[in-house]
């Protein structure tokens, strides 16, 4: 029987051991990290699925743990992504400035995550939350970009402080820090305040409009194997807080009768829609592959918030399934880009081309990941998008519907760009000789994630059965799902049937292809050039400004949010300068006058 407290303790000790091991020999430390993560994942999966973990606390009195289906669902997804990413450590650890602390901080952040989802006390939730933020904050720059760490920290701490304020309001109203009793005792106007504060925390952690500036900077500059964790796993912490706020607090405010939603949830849905559109448009413009996937995480964060704000079971099922599908797809895409970056040293799409000829397996993994990210059958992203569409259409929400459809179609555009510019196209001469396929240990997690992407799309029945348990725990009826079909509000979906027919279609096309005459194989440079003799591959590779005609339509508006935040920061600096000028000028007499005045005001009540 596994005990959560012992598990956390073992993981913390493993973190310290890996620090010393990595100091000794980087390869040994990284392999130890792989085993430590595997141990945690296996014990959680074996005991936690049916809530069989032992929650008694013996060593650290004051810590309290409780198991919920909601917490377990998040924990198992995040731990799985950590496990897959840890396979990449032995190959990348040599590039970092602070090698020994990398594995240490990696395992310590996992401690924070497991603790955050299993705890039942608000203050401990805050403590584990902050532990995650602090460890990842030191992981992100690794000596390269201070701006990334600063903006990540600034926005995350703003969210945490908002959450702490909300916790104190709950304490004031209910007298306890326990999660279940605190939320149950919440009512009236304070509940609206707590709702808003928790939502600020959720927005900051998910990276949803308007608190999204840190997302491309942090994810784009993070170390290559850590970006999938940031984008696929850590933003789900924000989704967890969002679920707490939207579903369990759910203040009774005025209803908008046209759509049948309370006004708070409707505003969240609108902000989520703006985030979807914004993320899609910024991703279409982006040249760096990692920043593009970061903007796509912003867009999908918007989808998750829209799903959770619609207040019915089908939307919740769509939201939970989207968390899983997006984590897998994002991890797959980031891992493929990381494999390419290791061989070529760059992630900018305008410098790369033709990688498929040397790295076909990485290409297939990336292809499957983006089919899922764009929401195309037969992969997992289609199921969750279909469920969200069902909920949006049933409520008849037009503007949210426009944003949801726009995001869905727009995602074809931005996921296709790395495929065409990075993997396909001409093979550039500087990479022809030195690029090889990724090593075996890196291919294992890539292939596992690829197979899981396909499985979540073809047989969603098992996972949807599990999310039904989570939805029922939150107090809503379960959705109707069987092994082969899902019933929505206005239709039935059979994913296995669609995949089977896709297979039949491809078989027919393959037969037609084989029967006909064999084609002559020619090189990539032997192509239609309107009669010109071109010998340089760079002249033939279309990758820079891929969507230029579309970008021209909205280029002028694309920096407005960044200038807004910069001007906000400038105003705060000016306020500080004003204070410094007033209170700390070079004349000593001014300071003495202020001190006397302040003491006088403080004693006002006493004297008079």
């Amino acid at each position, binding site marked *: 029987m596994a005990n959560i407290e012992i598990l956390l303790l073992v993981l913390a000790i493993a973190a310290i051991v890996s620090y010393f091991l990595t100091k000794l020999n980087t390869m040994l430390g990284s392999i130890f990290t792989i085993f430590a993560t595997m141990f945690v994942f296996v014990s959680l999966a074996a005991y936690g699925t049916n809530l069989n973990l032992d929650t008694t606390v013996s060593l650290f009195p004051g810590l309290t743990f409780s198991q919920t289906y909601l917490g377990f669902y998040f924990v198992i997804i995040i731990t799985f992504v950590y496990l897959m990413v840890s396979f990449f450590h032995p190959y990348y650890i040599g590039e970092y400035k602070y090698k020994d602390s990398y594995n240490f901080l990696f395992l310590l952040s996992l401690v924070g995550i497991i603790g955050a989802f299993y705890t039942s006390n608000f203050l401990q939730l805050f403590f584990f939350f902050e532990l995650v933020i602090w460890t990842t904050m030191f992981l992100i720059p690794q000596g390269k970009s201070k701006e990334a760490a600063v903006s990540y920290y600034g926005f995350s701490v703003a969210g945490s402080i908002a959450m702490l304020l909300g916790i104190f309001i709950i304490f004031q109203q209910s007298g306890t820090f326990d999660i279940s009793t605190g939320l149950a005792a919440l009512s009236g106007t304070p509940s609206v305040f707590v709702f808003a504060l928790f939502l600020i925390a959720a927005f900051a952690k998910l990276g949803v409009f308007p608190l999204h500036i840190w997302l491309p900077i942090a994810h784009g500059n993070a170390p290559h194997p850590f970006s999938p964790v940031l984008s696929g796993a850590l933003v789900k912490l924000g989704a967890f807080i969002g679920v707490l706020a939207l579903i369990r607090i759910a203040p009774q405010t005025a209803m908008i009768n046209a759509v049948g939603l309370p006004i708070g949830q409707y505003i969240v849905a609108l902000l989520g829609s703006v985030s979807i559109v914004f993320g899609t448009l910024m991703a279409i413009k982006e040249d760096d592959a990692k920043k593009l996937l970061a903007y796509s995480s912003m867009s999908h964060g918007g989808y998750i918030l829209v799903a959770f704000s619609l207040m019915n079971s089908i939307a919740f099922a769509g939201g939970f399934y989207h968390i899983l599908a997006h984590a897998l797809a994002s991890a797959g895409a980031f891992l493929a880009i990381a494999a390419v970056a290791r061989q070529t040293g760059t992630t900018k799409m305008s410098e790369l081309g033709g990688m498929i000829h040397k790295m076909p397996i990485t290409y297939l993994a990336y292809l499957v990941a983006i089919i899922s990210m764009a929401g195309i059958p037969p992969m997992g992203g289609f199921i969750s998008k279909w469920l969200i569409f069902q909920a949006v259409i049933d409520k*008849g929400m037009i503007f949210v519907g426009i944003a949801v459809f726009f995001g869905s179609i727009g995602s074809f555009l931005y996921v296709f760009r790395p*495929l065409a510019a990075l993997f396909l196209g001409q093979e550039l001469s500087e990479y022809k000789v030195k690029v090889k396929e990724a090593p075996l240990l890196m291919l294992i997690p890539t292939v596992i994630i690829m197979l899981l992407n396909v499985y979540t799309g073809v047989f969603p029945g098992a996972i949807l059965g599990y999310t039904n348990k989570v939805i029922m725990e939150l107090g809503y009826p379960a959705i109707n799902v069987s092994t082969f079909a899902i019933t929505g509000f206005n*239709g039935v979906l059979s994913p296995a*049937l669609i995949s089977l027919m896709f297979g039949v279609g491809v078989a027919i*096309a393959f037969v037609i292809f084989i029967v*006909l005459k064999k084609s002559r194989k020619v090189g990539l440079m032997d192509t*239609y050039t309107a009669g010109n003799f071109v010998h340089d591959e760079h002249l*033939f590779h279309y990758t820079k400004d891929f969507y230029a005609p579309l970008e021209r339509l909205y280029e002028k508006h694309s920096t407005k949010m960044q200038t807004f935040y910069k001007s906000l920061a400038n105003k705060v600096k000016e306020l500080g300068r004003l204070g410094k000028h007033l209170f700390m000028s070079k004349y000593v007499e001014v300071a003495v006058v202020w001190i006397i005045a302040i003491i006088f005001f403080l004693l006002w009540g006493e004297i008079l």
Partner: protein
Amino acid sequence: MTIVNVLLGVGVAFFGFVLQTSIAGINRKVIARLQKRQGPRWYQEFLDIFKLLSKRSVSHGWIFDFGVIMALGGIIATAMFMPLTSTFSPFGASDNFFIFVYLLAVGMLGMAMSASGSGNPWASIGVMRALTTMLAYEVPFLVVVLTIIKLTGSSSLSAIQLFQQTSGNNWFIIALPIGGIVGFLALMGMLGKKPFETYIAPGEIASGPMVEYGGKQLGMLFIMHEITVFIEVSLFVHLFLGGAHNILEFLLKYFVVYTFANLISNVNGRFKIDQVVKFYYKWPLIMAVFQAVIAIYFGWVI
């Protein structure tokens, strides 16, 4: 779902291919007569496709061939779900509207992969234009379809046809007239007819994605294009024109819609790609939203 359903589906896909290819040939003759010419034979498109399948062409690698197979496979799979009349649907109630929209995207993704894998920049530019055009016409179209599904209460195509055919209900092109116009404009974008023919553009980008294809790959892509047109025009017939009670009514409505779209396209020039996006996001989107608001919230349905 049994073998009979699968065979019926394959039969529908084959029927759609034969139907669309014949009607495309007849349309070439109609357009020629408009231009005071004789025009080709009505089975000319068949000859074109079989000639292409008999030629020996080049290949640029495994992704070039695999993309074409995936494209044709995806489109055949989509066509297998299409109902022909309100009572004949190969897979029963599983002909959900969203399946068609997204499986078409698989076909397009396969073709895009294969075109970019040929290494020619014209192909990538053509794919970029095709994707941008798709972004432009899908959003107003899906808003109108949102209205239709909300009014019908079901997103299965057979159910939508039956809803329009019950007495007291009009076809959706009459009940939602503004939405019908938006739907037809979106249909012209989907078919790639002028003025939205930007992604082929033979004079500008040397026929876009098709630049490096010849022989059997081009023949398979032509088959894919014919089946895609069949799916899109049938979607319009089922969603807006009340579907059909029997196969003759379906053939008649199909022929009228496709010929009308062809005649309009014949007298138009070609838009630039940013003009396409600006066109669809101005009046069609406003009209679609207006129609949705008055139909869902006020219930003003004719």
